[in-house]
């Protein structure tokens, strides 16, 4: 704190003052009031998404996942592909060389516990991702929980053991590329069908919209024994694909960082 100049503290104070002033004027000028017509924007989504008679429905009780993958699907696709491009670029720059296989935190206790905890974490993450259209959670959350399990193996057993388990860099890159490609296919298939048959359709469209576009994905299938399996159109498919993309992406990032920083010693 001694050597920090007066100029930096002045900058800190000035930025805080600027933030307070901006917030005050934005609230006074009513710029940040989030209303659409007379209904607040959040209420609009909360009413429209679970209601099957609304034109903007997703047939899903979970509003956040629907907004992420249906109403704002295009944004989410770009987020996924930005992460994809970043990881591919780092992979290109780093170049996976050889590293030593041993690990420094490995006594017998972590080895046993890692073997016990690996299936538990995988089960939890898959369950979070698979019913992401019914409960909170979804592809990104499930994928980032899944990344704990290979990371545990990486820390305890080293990279050799992880590669023996099937988490090789080539396989991870392949799975990730395939998932991102399939997200594109699932998002654009309605548009392609609409173009071929001469019906208007949207990119990343989920349910058919009356008066705008009559085609779309089905919301549920009737099982042979009479039950209904609700998968909310694209939501469940995209959740599973996003789960694959995010989990393999984070695992790949951790493997790369382990190789790059571990190989320097």
């Amino acid at each position, binding site marked *: 704190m001694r050597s920090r100049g007066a100029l930096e503290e002045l900058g800190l104070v000035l930025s805080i003052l600027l933030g307070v002033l901006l917030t005050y004027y934005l609230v006074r000028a009513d710029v940040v009031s989030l209303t659409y017509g007379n209904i607040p924007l959040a209420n609009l989504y909360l009413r429209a998404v679970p209601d099957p008679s609304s034109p903007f429905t997703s047939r899903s009780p979970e509003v956040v996942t629907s907004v992420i993958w249906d109403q704002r699907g295009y944004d989410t696709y770009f987020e996924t592909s930005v992460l994809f491009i970043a990881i591919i670029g780092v992979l290109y720059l780093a170049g996976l060389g050889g590293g030593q296989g041993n*690990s420094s935190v490995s006594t017998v206790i972590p080895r046993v516990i890692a073997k016990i*905890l690996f299936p*538990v*974490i995988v089960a*939890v993450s898959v369950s979070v991702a698979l019913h992401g259209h019914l409960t909170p959670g979804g592809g990104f959350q499930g994928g980032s929980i899944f990344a*704990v399990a290979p990371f*545990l193996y990486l*820390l305890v057993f080293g990279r050799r053991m992880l590669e023996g388990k099937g988490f090789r860099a080539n396989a991870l890159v392949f799975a990730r590329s395939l998932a991102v490609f399939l997200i594109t296919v699932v998002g654009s298939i309605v548009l392609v069908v609409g173009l071929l048959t001469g019906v208007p359709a949207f990119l990343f469209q989920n349910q058919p919209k009356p008066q705008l576009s009559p085609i779309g994905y089905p919301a549920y299938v009737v099982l042979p024994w009479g039950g209904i399996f609700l998968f909310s159109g694209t939501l469940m498919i995209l959740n599973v694909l996003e789960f694959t993309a995010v989990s393999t992406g984070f695992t790949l990032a951790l493997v790369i960082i382990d190789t790059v920083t571990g190989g320097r010693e």
Partner: protein
Amino acid sequence: MVDPSLLNYVLPVVLGVYGLAYSIYSIVVLRGPTVPDMVLALDVMTVDLIIIYLLIALYYESPMLAIGAIPLASWILLLDFVVAKYLLEVRKK
């Protein structure tokens, strides 16, 4: 079956004591003289937070809030491992 209104006698007391423990732990995490102290306090604070999440979920009667407890419980171990690996490998150099 027990009437849920009986919870109003139990939950505020338990949540208050856990909140007090949580605040003491958070002060220890920010103050703790060495790095292992901070990580250890972070672990115990995380365990406290799991219970606080579940109590909040019970308070609001919305089970969807409870799902955050499981990733939190699985990340405790990882932070310990990463910090331990860092400390051991930096000493080796």
